[in-house]
């Protein structure tokens, strides 16, 4: 199986690039003290470079090869027409600091997308600047902080975070200088409303609430939850990672959320890129709009028609990154919304939720279901039954690989033991869902009759059961040239 590092392919004098000769007279060189003496980069020929990367890519599971039910990540199909549109030179070859009159197409696209996202989520304004969901969280929490301080509310230094929350939530609150107060979940998997009522006070800045929740459930108490926080003088931040379940079925803005982040690389089909780039726009109610990061795109009516400009909201929290936003991702999300329209988006939610409930119905006998109720677009099973037989959720996940599936999210949320979070998305066929269900049922049977085959999985991958303890105890985070010389 192909296994070389770039540095092991390298040989002196090789290169994969061509450059024209210098066409201007040479200038005086820089003084020696500024210059480097060696540039230790590999030297690889183009054919070897291409083979290297193509063969590497073949070692990956991806949506385009495999069912990828990673809960909370919404691994839906990435439409290829969006890829084509995103490659037009008029989008690719523009500089963010060009005069605005030369990028009206790009600014219009951003303005429209701001509006679409606000409309879809029942909010009044949006920023497209944040580069990822966590970045959007930080943006939203900083906006809440600015809003409260503007009103003289310096004493509000606590952010309430459910114990089921994604790790980015408390990490974000801490980054924004807040104390994190955890709120437990109740027996039904919903937020413990009594605990929330006891926790809110005049020190509450905000509640960070994911809806649908990280358990894939629609917390029916949502209106009381948001009202409880508002009554105490706090705001409600919405983690919109699970927006895929409710497109066209409910708007977060109608449920009492003041601010929401959206993951374009989840709900709006932009590719995950092996870990990014994503994009995390934030939509807000009018009272938070003045605090949006700068710049936002505005439209002015002139006698020659509409003109799009970049503008700074009057009480902006400032920038959260350089330039305007992850435009290449925005283009794809825009194209997706234009392709689907309102009815297409509603169908997305309907099918995402149906697919998840269908899989749940097929699996709930064989696996422990901690919260036996209707799920939304994803659901959480527990491997505790199999654990009693010596088979852990980790083993189940690895065995799924043998059956040709990417494992679901495991060991999250933290409040479920041996958790398996499954999100099929709407872009999978019934046949695929049935095949996955069959595999999960087969593994449950194997756990009883031949657990060893599950515990020793996966069996056919290029590497198996990597030693993560060693990787953490003796970190090797870059290639070593001496070792490379040995392998070459």
């Amino acid at each position, binding site marked *: 199986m192909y296994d070389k590092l770039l540095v092991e392919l390298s040989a002196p004098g090789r290169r994969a690039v061509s450059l024209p000769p210098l066409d201007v007279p040479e200038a005086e060189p820089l003084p020696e003290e500024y210059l480097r003496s060696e540039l230790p980069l590999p030297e690889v020929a183009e054919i070897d470079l291409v083979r290297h990367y193509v063969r590497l890519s073949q070692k990956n599971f991806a949506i385009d090869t495999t069912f990828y039910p990673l809960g909370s990540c919404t691994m839906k199909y990435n439409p290829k027409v969006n890829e084509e549109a995103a490659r037009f030179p008029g989008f690719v070859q523009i500089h963010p600091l060009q005069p605005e009159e030369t990028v009206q197409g790009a600014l219009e696209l951003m303005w429209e997308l701001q509006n679409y996202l606000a409309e879809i989520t029942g909010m009044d304004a949006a920023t497209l600047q944040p580069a990822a969901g966590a970045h959007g969280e930080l943006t939203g929490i900083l906006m809440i902080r600015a809003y409260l301080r503007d009103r003289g509310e310096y004493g509000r230094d606590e952010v309430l975070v459910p114990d089921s929350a994604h790790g980015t939530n408390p990490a974000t609150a801490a980054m924004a200088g807040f104390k994190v107060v955890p709120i437990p979940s109740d027996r039904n998997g919903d937020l413990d409303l009594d605990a929330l009522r006891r926790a809110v006070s005049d020190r509450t800045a905000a509640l960070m609430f994911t809806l649908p929740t990280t358990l894939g459930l629609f917390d029916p108490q949502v209106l009381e939850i948001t009202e409880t926080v508002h009554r105490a003088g706090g705001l409600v931040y919405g983690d919109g990672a699970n927006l895929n379940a409710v497109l066209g079925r409910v708007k977060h803005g109608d449920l009492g959320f003041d601010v929401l982040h959206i993951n374009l690389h989840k709900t709006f089909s932009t590719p995950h890129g092996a870990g990014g780039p994503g994009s995390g726009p934030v939509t807000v109610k009018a009272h938070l709009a003045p605090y949006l990061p700068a710049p936002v795109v505005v439209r002015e009516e002139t006698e020659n028609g509409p003109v799009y400009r970049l503008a700074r909201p009057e009480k902006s929290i400032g920038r959260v990154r350089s330039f305007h936003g992850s435009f290449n991702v925005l283009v794809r999300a825009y194209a997706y919304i234009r392709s689907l329209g309102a009815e297409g988006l509603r169908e997305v939610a309907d099918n995402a939720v149906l697919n998840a409930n269908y899989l749940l119905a097929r699996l709930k006998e064989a696996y422990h279901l901690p919260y036996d109720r209707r799920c939304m677009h994803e659901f959480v099973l527990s491997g505790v039954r199999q654990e009693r037989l010596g088979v852990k959720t980790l083993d189940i996940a690895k065995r799924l690989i043998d059956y040709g599936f990417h494992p679901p999210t495991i060991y999250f949320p933290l409040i479920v033991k041996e958790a398996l979070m499954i999100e099929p998305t709407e872009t999978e066929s019934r046949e695929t869902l049935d095949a996955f269900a069959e595999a999960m049922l087969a593994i449950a049977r194997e756990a009883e009759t031949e657990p060893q085959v599950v515990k020793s999985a996966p069996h056919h991958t290029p590497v198996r059961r990597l030693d993560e303890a060693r990787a*953490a*105890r003796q970190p090797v985070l870059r290639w070593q040239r001496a070792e490379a010389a040995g392998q070459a």
Partner: protein
Amino acid sequence: MIPEDRKYTREHEWVKVEDGVAVVGITDYAQRELGDVVFVNLPATGTRVKQFERFGEIESVKAVSDLYAPVSGEVIEVNPRLGSEPELVNRSPYEEGWMLKVRLEDPAELDNLLTAEEYRQHIGEG
């Protein structure tokens, strides 16, 4: 097998006192729950630790846990081997995987701790 010659906290630390010096570590139950230990973050010698307050952290591949002092006193020695061999905590939590030696300030504090039998009950192996 929970050693009888020492006392325990509810947070799974043990303490064994020899001539006024308290040796501190974590229990076998704790190391099993944690998984492969990759890093232990301990205070410097000379630091004063206080009973039931956080004195450090222990990391496995997938988890981080706080370490709580079973007794108060000045840290006089830190296990020098844990830096390069954190796996000692897994292999030998009661012996080679010891973490701190503390000059015991107040022997009465030991009364606040669990006996081996009480600890056994606490973790449900009674």
